[in-house]
Every structure is written in C-alpha cells, then in structure tokens.
C-alpha cells in the first residue's frame, strides 16, 4: 500500500491507497456523519448518512476507497437534504422516551437528530407491534431499534458468533408518493429499514452465544441494553475510570463507570464497563465481570502484624499471575532482600518456554501481536482453546477472516463448534493430545523455507513424504462432432431442403485417471481431513500475511522445550509471525520481572493462592489485598504492551506495598515502582502518571508503552528433536474454563453465572450413560475429585473439560502439568 494524498473539503489529507474515505477523514479530524459503520468491520451500508461527493459523484464514505488526488466534498445541498431526510426517517415512530431510556445522553440518534437540526417530521408510516424482548443477558427493545445492523456486523465480523441477523418486520409498505418526493437515498434506506428488525439467528427464544455483549455496546440507541444495567443509572452520572481489564492477557482497554451505590450508601460502585468498540472488543468476562473488588472496612492491624511475621518466617512466596507488574516487582525485590523463593508454576512454564524460544529466534519475545493478527489474512492457532483462553485472539482470527478475506487453521484436540462456526474458510484439525509437535512440524513443512532450514529438519520433514498413486475422477470437456440435419434454403433454387451439417460441441465427460501425488504422513498423524491439502491450497490463494497464535497447551507440554524451538524455527524460516498467548492476566509481566523458582520450601506465603499464610484479593485469605479494579499499576498484555490501569474503587486495607515498606523497601505508592521495572527485559523507565491510556481517532493506540523486544544471543544449535508418537489412552480430560470464566475473580462476580463442574459435550453425554447434573468421580493417576456434570454446547467431541475458576474444584490435582490427562469418569 502506498501513501496518497486526497483532498477533503479543501484540506490536503495523507492516507493509504485504498483506505475508506470515512476512515481517512476521521483520522484527520474531519467530521462525516456515519451511524452504521464500525471501524474494524466491513461496511454495512444501512444508514447511508455518510454520503459524500468524490470527484463530483455521490458515494458512501464508508465503502468508497480513496484514490490519489481525489477531491471530496463532505456536504453539498443535496447531501444535506438526504441527511436531514434520513434523520427524519429514523425519528419516525421512535418513541419519545428519552427520559427513561438507558442510552439517553450517549445516544447517536439524539446526537444526529440535533446535528441535522430535525425539528419537524414530514414522513409517516403505520407502526407495528414492537414489544420488548428478553434475550437473557441482553434486552432488545425493537421499538427503539433503528436497524443500523451494527450489532449484526459486530457479531459477524468481529466476534464470530453470528448470533444476530435481520428478521422481517411485517410492516405496511411505504406510501407510493414518497418514492417520487423523497430524497433518493433516504427513501431506499427507509424502504429497507421498514422491512426489517433484529432477531436471533438460531430462531430460539433466548440468546445462546458466547455472551460478550459487544452488540449492546455498539448499539447507537437504547435498543440493545445489558439486562443488568437497565434503569440503574444515567450515563452522565457516572465517572469513567480508564483502566485495563484484569481477567486475561489480552489487556483490553476498558473504562469502569463508577457512581455512588445508592442514596443511603455513598460508597462507589461500578455500574458497567465500557469500551472503545471501534478499536477494542471485549469478551463477556471483561464486560460483565467487573464487581470482583475486595471490600474491606478498615486496616486490620493484627492480620498485618501476622503477615509481617509470616514474611519474616517464610522461605517461599507463592503467587498467581493476576497481579500488576509493580506487585511482581515488589515480590522480586522481596526475594532479593529476604532471600525467599518465588514460586509461580504457570508463569515459570511460560518463562522457560520464552527462554527456549529466544535461543533460536534471538529475541526475548515473540515477534507478533494480536493487533497485527487482525490485519493478517492467514491465521494459525496451535495449542490453545482459543475461545476461552483468550477471546480476543479468537476475535483476531475471525476478524482477519471476515474483513481481510482471510482463512484460518485451527489445531486443537477439543472439537469446538464455536470455532467451526466462524465461517467457511476456517480449517480445523482435531489432533490427539501430545501431538502439538506434529502440528508445528506440519506448519514448518507447509510454510518453512526449505532451503534455509537446517538440513536435519528438512530431512526429517521429507521423511514423512512419500508418493502414492491415487485414482481421481476428473471432468474434462471433450469435443464431439455431430452430424445434424438442418433445413436450409437453397440459394440457387430458393427452395428449402434438408442439408447435413457438421456441428462441433463441447461435452463434459468424466474420466478416471491415475495420478501420482504427494502423501504427507504428518496429516495422517494429526488426523486431518482427506481433502486437507486441497482445502488448504484453496484457502492459501491470494494470502500474503501469515500469523500464528500459540497457546498454553504448549508451555506445559512434556516436550515444551522442543515446541518452543520449533516455534523459533517457524518464526525464523517462514513468513509466519508468532504470538504467544500468556496463560493468565500478567504471566508475561511476571515472566519478565521475576526470577522464579521451581520448588517451594517448608513455609510459604501465598498471594492469591492458598499457602501457610495467605494474602488474598478474593477476600478469603489471612490478610486482604486489593483486587485489580481497586489498584493502580500496569499489566503486560499479549500485545507486548505495558498498559496502565487505574483504581475504580477505593480500598481501605493494606496493600503489598505496605508489607514491603514494613520489610525494608521504601515507596509511598505501589506505582512508584513503575519506573523501576527492569529495562533489561524490555520495560521502560517511565513514571506511571506519564502513561497514556487512550486511542486516537485513526485507531492509533496510546496506552502505556510497547515493550522493547530485546535482542538476546541466539544459539548456533538449531536442532530440534523428533516427536514421539506417545498417545493418551482412555477418556481425556482437559483443563480449560468455559467462555467468560478465567479465574476465581471472574467466578466471584454477580453477572457471570456459569455453573462450575465438569463440562461435557452433548455428544459425549449422549454416548455415555451420564446425564447433566450427575455427580461423578473423576480419577486420574494424579488424583481424583467429585464434581457435577454440566452439559456444554460450546464444545463437541469426547474430551471433558475441567475448569480452574472455582476453588472448590481442585482441577490441578488431576493433571501432572500438561493440560490434558486421561481419567476415568464414574457416577457416584
């Protein structure tokens, strides 16, 4: 893409060749009204209000691409007429209930009605019954709906659930006279609007999707509202606290809407979470899981004294990665000061994996991020239950397929109808557990530069290939000569007579042919479809940017070192750019800041994890700690960005910093440590207060800073091990959470109502004698536990899922470290 200059309203604007006019204008602070367009999605063309004149021709700014030297006028007399008519049409039969509407104050219909100066109405049509519909976590009021289809577009192009669609409205046709009298585009838009409303794709009564609530967020009017938010407060009463979501490693920018709880209780409460939906899309946990704060009445001096004592006594600090970078830094400082061990198995695994990877790649971190994955057009996912490990990674995969006409390749042992539902161009390979290496070898085989790859790797890859002869049926077109008799006028005699004529005709014919084809054994090992290669060839057409997302299955794999090295080879010797999804919120930050140990000692202090003395932000420990929505600090995201988050709610108890101060460190606030984060790992010496947290109009992200991808010495040894064909026999269990649940923090919130238990697909249950709600004993070689069965239609196949978000179910006890295990499941 090349830089070009276009002229909008007399202003020279520099933009990319092929960029939509609307985006070019927005990036340069030129206002073009638009309702239905969502920045990262494909144009919907429902509202038609973004009409502009380009080189003397009326076009829609949201789907007209800019060409060098284009002259654009955003407003002409005719366009103004159209816009005013469009807004009048939107106001036809729109209930005048702004006083009670939840969108009032941030409603685009209100804004544009005023912007276009609509003070009278010229159009009318008979209204139909448009009563409220309860869709579960969402509430749809068709009466308020302007059918801009933003919800449908977001669900399809960004989220990938495809849960919403337009349904017939059943209204009377518009009066014929409008067709002649009305502005052309306004009539066309109204004609379409008057025929449709929004409905569920499934045809069911209740919404059954991954419940991200993005549709309600993008709704310009009050038609789609989060059920929990209805009539709770007004938009303008809340204070927006810019923050970073603390649930997973995506580090989405959110803002907490905070107001006093009620007239009696003046303590602040979070009413909802909002996002800049043009630039960041949330998942259900981010949007609805906001009330996980740890309310503490006062400083508990006794518990604090005990905590200090415990720290002095302890030889180990155990913790999880749901902490800020600053807290991780405090823990590391305590380690240096007190000589304790730091134990965090999940971050340790990730750290080791990164180190093994850098030995080959020569960089401290992986090369890609999810933002770039959005812009790729061929995305591969290996070793992660994408939809629940990191919903934003799924959005990146879906978005790249839908908007960049891309394709995807998904390797995972658990069958996933949600991933399959993303579209036609997603290819799924459900391999056996432990075969992730084979998947990476296949990626190397398909995409690696064979000439540059180490020779033993190329040889090894070649060993899987053989030639085989297969019989294919081909349809060819054959020329057939037919002799037909036609009546023709004899020119000499002038009489009609029968003449024989030769006629050539192409006839399709099926023939069987024997061909020699390449047989790749890796495909067989992975259990790929027979026509995998054909599909892949089709999907690889016109693809030029490749991305791979690797996930937590790889970090805990028994042979994780080899996997890390394979990823290093892929990054180095192919066009594929790699993103690694950190296991928990701040696993990447912890891995970069802390020097972690493998085993714990005799007495340990736990932070958010049970130990001899427990500090907990969940409220169940010996000393309370603030949860992430009560803290300021930074979190390191999968995008290698250090994002600042602010405290939405006050916290009256002690913090880790208080303990550290008591133990000899010195800082007034926790965020004093932000500037001290290790520069050697890629952090920057920047004060917390100088970190921005916003997006520009052109989508440029100004949030914290990007980590430097520090160069490390690459090892000259690029050898990788061959993979073993070790298999797991028996019933498989997989340690993964349902969508919208990540940790105990998400489980604690009121709006996320997932039931905990062992998740089995409907297919699994129908094949066995087990039923939903049955209590079963799950026994593996590492341990056993008794749980209830939950039927989950978001998975299929015969792997059962054990979650980690409920502390009552100690799933970890059943697994060695790898996320898969074999187990027996029996009714009790």
């Amino acid at each position, binding site marked *: 893409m090349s830089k070009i200059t276009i002229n909008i309203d007399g202003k020279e604007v520099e933009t990319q060749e092929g960029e939509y006019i609307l985006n070019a204008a927005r990036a340069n602070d030129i206002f073009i009204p638009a309702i239905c367009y969502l920045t990262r999605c494909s144009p919907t063309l429902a509202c038609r209000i973004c009409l502009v004149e380009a080189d003397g021709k009326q076009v829609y700014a949201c789907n007209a691409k800019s060409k060098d030297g284009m002259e654009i006028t955003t407003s002409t007399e005719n366009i103004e007429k159209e816009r005013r008519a469009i807004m009048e049409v939107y106001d036809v039969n729109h209930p005048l209930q702004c*006083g*009670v509407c939840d969108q009032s104050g941030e409603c685009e219909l209100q804004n544009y009605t005023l912007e276009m100066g609509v003070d009278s109405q010229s159009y*009318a049509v008979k209204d139909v019954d448009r009563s409220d519909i309860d869709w579960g976590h969402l509430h749809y009021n068709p009466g308020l709906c302007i059918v801009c289809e933003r919800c449908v577009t977001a669900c399809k192009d960004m989220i990938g659930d495809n849960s919403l669609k337009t349904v017939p409205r059943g209204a009377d046709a518009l*009066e014929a006279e409008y067709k002649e009298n009305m502005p052309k585009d306004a009539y066309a838009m109204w004609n379409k609007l008057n025929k449709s409303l929004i409905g569920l794709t499934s045809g069911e009564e209740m919404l059954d999707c991954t419940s991200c609530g993005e549709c309600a967020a993008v709704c310009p009017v009050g038609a789609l509202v989060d059920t929990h938010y209805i009539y*709770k407060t*007004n938009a303008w*009463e809340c204070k927006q606290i810019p923050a970073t979501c603390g649930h997973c490693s995506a580090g989405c920018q959110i803002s907490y809407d905070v107001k006093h709880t009620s*007239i009696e209780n003046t303590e602040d409460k979070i009413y909802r979470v909002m996002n800049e939906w043009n630039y960041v899309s949330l998942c259900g946990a981010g949007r609805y899981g906001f009330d996980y704060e740890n309310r503490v009445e006062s400083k508990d001096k006794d518990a604090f004294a005990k905590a200090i004592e415990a720290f002095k006594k302890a030889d180990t600090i155990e913790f999880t990665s749901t902490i800020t970078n600053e807290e991780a830094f405090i823990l590391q400082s305590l380690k240096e000061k007190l000589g304790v061990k730091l134990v965090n198995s999940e971050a340790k695994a990730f750290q080791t994996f990164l180190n093994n990877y850098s030995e080959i790649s020569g960089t401290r971190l992986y090369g890609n991020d999810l933002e770039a994955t959005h812009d790729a057009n061929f995305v591969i996912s290996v070793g992660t239950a994408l939809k629940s490990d990191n919903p934003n990674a799924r959005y990146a995969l879906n978005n790249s397929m839908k908007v960049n006409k891309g394709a995807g390749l998904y390797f995972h042992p658990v069958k996933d109808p949600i991933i399959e539902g993303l579209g036609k161009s997603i290819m799924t390979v459900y391999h056996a557990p432990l075969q992730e290496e084979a998947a990476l070898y296949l990626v190397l085989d398909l995409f690696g530069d064979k000439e540059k790859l180490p020779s033993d790797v190329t040889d090894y890859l070649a060993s899987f290939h053989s030639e085989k002869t297969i019989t294919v049926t081909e349809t060819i077109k054959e020329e057939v000569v037919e002799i037909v008799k036609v009546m023709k006028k004899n020119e000499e005699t002038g009489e009609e007579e029968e003449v024989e004529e030769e006629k050539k005709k192409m006839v399709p014919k099926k023939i069987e042919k024997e061909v020699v084809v390449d047989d790749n054994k890796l495909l067989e090992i992975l259990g790929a479809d027979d026509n995998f290669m054909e599909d892949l060839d089709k999907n690889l057409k016109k693809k030029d940017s490749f991305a791979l997302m690797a996930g937590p299955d790889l970090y805990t794999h028994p042979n994780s070192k080899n996997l890390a090295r394979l990823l290093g080879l892929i990054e180095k010797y192919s066009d594929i750019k790699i993103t690694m999804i950190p296991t928990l919120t701040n696993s990447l930050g912890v891995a970069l800041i802390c020097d972690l140990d493998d085993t714990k000692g005799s007495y340990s202090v736990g932070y958010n994890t049970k130990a001899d003395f427990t500090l907990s932000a969940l409220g169940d420990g010996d000393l309370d700690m603030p949860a992430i929505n009560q803290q300021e600090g930074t979190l390191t995201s999968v995008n290698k960005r250090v994002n600042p988050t602010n405290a939405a709610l006050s916290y009256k108890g002690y913090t880790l910093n208080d303990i550290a101060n008591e133990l000899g460190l010195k800082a007034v606030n926790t965020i004093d440590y932000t500037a001290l984060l290790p520069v050697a790992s890629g952090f920057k010496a920047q004060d917390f207060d100088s970190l*921005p947290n916003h997006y520009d109009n052109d989508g440029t992200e100004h949030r914290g800073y990007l980590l430097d991808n520090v160069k490390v010495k690459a090892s000259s040894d690029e050898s990788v091990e061959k993979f073993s064909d070790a298999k797991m026999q028996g019933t498989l269990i997989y340690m993964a959470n349902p969508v919208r649940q990540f940790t105990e923090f998400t489980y604690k919130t009121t709006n996320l109502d997932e039931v905990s238990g062992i998740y089995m697909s409907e297919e699994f249950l129908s094949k066995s004698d087990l039923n939903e709600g049955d209590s079963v004993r799950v026994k593996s070689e590492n341990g056993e536990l008794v749980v209830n069965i939950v039927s989950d239609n978001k998975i299929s196949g015969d792997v059962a899922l054990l979650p980690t978000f409920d502390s009552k179910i100690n799933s970890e006890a059943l697994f060695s470290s790898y996320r898969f295990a074999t187990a027996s499941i029996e009714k009790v």
Partner: protein
Amino acid sequence: MNNEQLNDRNVSDGYFLVDIEDYPTDGWGKFKRVIKRTFRGELFVGLWVVLREMIRFDTHTIKYPEEKMPIGPRYRAVHEMKRLWESDAERCIGCGLCEKICISNCIRIDTRLDENSRKEVSEYTINLGRCIFCGYCAEVCPELAITHGGEYENASDQREHFVDYAGMLTPLDKMKAGTQVEFEGFGAITPHEDERVKKTPLAY
C-alpha cells in the same frame, strides 16, 4: 482521556480546616472572655432600638408566626412532587435531569426496573442544607413533576434536612379532593404553548 484527577492521590476529598482562633482553655483566658462579652457596648445599642420601637406603637412588622404573608404563586420554596390528574400516579419518570442540572448537587435519585418493566424511582432526596432554591430542577423537568411549593418554614435543628420522595409527593387525599395546585413558576407551561408545537404526521 485526561488522567489528571486520577493522578491526584490526596485523598482528603478537598476539605480543609478554616483558620479559627482556638477557644481559651485555661481559667484566666475564660474569665477574660466572659468579661469582654458581658460588658460589650453592642448589647445596649440593641436594647435601645427595641425600646424605641416599643414606645412608638407604629409598627409595620407582621406578627409571625400568628400572621403570615401570602406567598406568590411563583415563589420558590421547598420542593413538591406532583401527581398525574388522570391516574394519581407519580409524574416523575426518573429521567435524572434534575439531578444533572442541580448546581448545588443536592438532588440524588435511585431508579430501578420495576415488576411491570418500567423505570421506577425507588428513592429521591433533596439535601435542603445545600439547595439554593434556584428553580433549575423545576425548569428542566420534562414532566412537570418536580416543582417548587410554598412551604418556606424549613427551620430545623439540622441544616442538611433531607426531603424524601414520599414526603414530597402530593398526598393522595389531596388528589381525591382535587386540590393539587399546579406550580406557575419555573418550568410551568407558558400560555399559547399549543400554537408553538409542530405536529408530527401519523399514519393511523
């Protein structure tokens, strides 16, 4: 987004102590204070004014509280919440505009979704200690629900004497008797309002 307010970590809520001289604590200081207050000349000035007016017998003062001045219909005293004439239901729809416009920030409103899926005002308070009776709330109210009333006797042992929703609503017996009085001041419908309204075409 501007983070300035978030970067101010002074948690004292913006309150500060006014510089007032401390009361004397020792005996001598207290004694001096008594003497100073007792023999201050102002006392006799006041006594003289009272005596002078008493002798004149020509007073314009209304003998409050036995006598009271009539209040103008647009007077802005303690707020009232009006009911609908048709149904006796509350006029307030809980839009929260009064809460927003209130310049002394003394109105708070709690709303919720009621059983009939309508927005319900669960509680509504005005902190009269802060209210400056400017009338903006009555003016902004789209439903003529909150108005000012004529009740100006709001002396209380506590300045921040709250008025609650139930207390502000027109009593039902008054509605039955049809004696609810429409407020004529801020926010009231002006004469000839109908002529100014642009009508919307309806297809049915």
